């Protein structure tokens, strides 16, 4: 902005937008508070909860004790990280080749990969379910890693492709002419330029896989259930459960919230397939 903005105007903007931001954020803030209350306190009127009740860690221990929370937490970690790394392993060579050795069909290939992402999951629910049943992959972490890898593969290829394409090929040629060996070329020239893009791709895909709630709900029951499915079990609660639900929810969303805040920019790029940068 070239113009100076008066302090008062800035203050008014801050108050208005800050209030809206607070309202949007409120549900998350509220469960953060309820998670540290007892069940009896958690259903009191909001002002009462805020100013008239004590704090406790009781809900967190109850959630863990009731149904091994950390099993589901580690399922989430294994499934999201596993599917992302597997996807990366498959996608890096493909994106690399398409970015540096583009052919006549590269564009069509990219568009086709993208089109697989447009397939509504419910359209293939029945066959996938039956195939998984016959291969006894239902309710296994392996099964979910496979499905989520394939689901997110197009996004991984696309994101990597847009990042790799920004690496100028001339730099590689220059390094080669200066006598760099292939190992040097990859290690000292390519890697430093490719790693930031790969890191953001990984981050975004872990977020997407962590929150995926169609396949995780339909293909798991108890053993392999990640947090999405575990939290869903609170839809048929017994007795008071606000504090427990809050504690379980906060633990489930906290890691992703933190990662998400770091990846705001990449999020736009990844989710719009480079259509908005």
């Amino acid at each position: 902005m070239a113009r100076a903005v008066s302090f008062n105007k800035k203050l008014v903007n801050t108050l208005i937008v800050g209030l809206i931001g607070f309202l949007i954020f409120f549900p998350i803030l509220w469960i953060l508070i309820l998670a540290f209350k007892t069940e009896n306190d958690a259903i009191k009127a909001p002002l009462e909860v805020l100013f008239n009740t004590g704090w406790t860690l009781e809900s967190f221990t109850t959630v863990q004790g009731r149904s091994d929370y950390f099993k589901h937490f580690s399922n989430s970690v294994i499934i999201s990280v596993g599917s992302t790394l597997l996807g990366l392993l498959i996608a890096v060579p493909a994106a690399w080749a398409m970015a540096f050795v583009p052919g006549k069909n590269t564009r069509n290939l990219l568009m086709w990969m993208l089109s697989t992402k447009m397939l509504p999951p419910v359209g293939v629910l029945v066959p996938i379910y039956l195939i998984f049943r016959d291969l006894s992959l239902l309710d296994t972490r392996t099964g979910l890693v496979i499905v989520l890898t394939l689901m997110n593969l197009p996004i991984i290829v696309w994101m990597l492709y847009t990042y790799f394409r920004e690496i100028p090929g001339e730099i590689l040629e220059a390094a080669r002419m200066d006598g760099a060996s292939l190992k040097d070329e990859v290690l000292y020239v390519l890697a430093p330029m490719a790693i930031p893009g790969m890191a953001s791709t990984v981050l975004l895909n872990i977020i997407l896989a962590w929150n995926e709630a169609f396949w995780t709900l339909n293909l798991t029951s108890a053993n392999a259930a990640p947090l999405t499915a575990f939290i869903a079990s609170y839809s048929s609660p017994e007795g008071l459960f606000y504090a427990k639900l809050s504690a379980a929810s906060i633990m489930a969303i906290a890691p992703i919230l933190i990662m998400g805040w770091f990846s705001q920019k990449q999020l736009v790029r990844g989710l719009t397939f480079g259509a908005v940068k």
Partner: protein
Amino acid sequence: MATKASRSAARWMISPSVVLLLGWMIVPLALTLYFSFLRYNLLMPGDNPFVGWENYYWFVTDPSFSDAMVNTLILVGGILLITTIGGIGLALLLDRPMFGQGIIRIMVIAPFFVMPTVSGLVWKNMMMNPVNGVLAWIASVFGAQPVDFFGDIPLLSIVLIVSWMWLPFATLILFTALQSMDQEQLEAAEMDGASWVNRFFYLILPHMARSITVVVLIQTIFLLATFAEILVTTNGGPGTATTNLTYLVYVSSLLQYDVGMGSAGGVIAIILANIVAIFLMRMIGKNLDA
């Protein structure tokens, strides 16, 4: 500069992705199509005879299908309306000079990272519950009758919850688009006496048009698949009040074990999503050439 050798190497590097995606797409698609023409119920063992269009006929003529189509339309349309208009407004507000913009932006974006089952349950219980919910408390402070969200307006309640999750997405993308706006052009227009309304409709909106289209198309693809929020809040009820197409297919295939019927519904869902996808792909393709 690509040599023959590097071309064949490239082909090898690309093939794993292609083969896997081909398998992921073609095999289940072919099976869905095949099942949709069979009388195939997991509860009735025996052979599965070919029945032609029968599954489609029963799926489409079932009153719950028309309910589901209307609900899908309201769900997708309502959420799109709220998130795009809200997103444009919020993006414009965020673009103004203010203190602590980073922190405010973080608060606005946060809901997008909340998993669908958490948003559904937290809104249903902590926010919208007619006795203990925060919204009921606010109503009582103003002396109003608390709204029984899931009793009286179940579909609208789900529209609100899912909008809360997608508003940050729209805001973030439209805000990104807004930041690439030419500030000098705006100032010149202002100096020439263009009112705020004129600047918005003749400069800002045309600049954002592309991004708005992208937001609408991408959200439509994802919103057609809304599932978890419905599962944890209403189970599609009361009756079929909150059953969308995705949920209906889930009910017929995984709850009623009717593979044939579920597959027919799946094929219909694919056709619907493809209509949207064609437009989206065209937009993304254009950008790829640029």
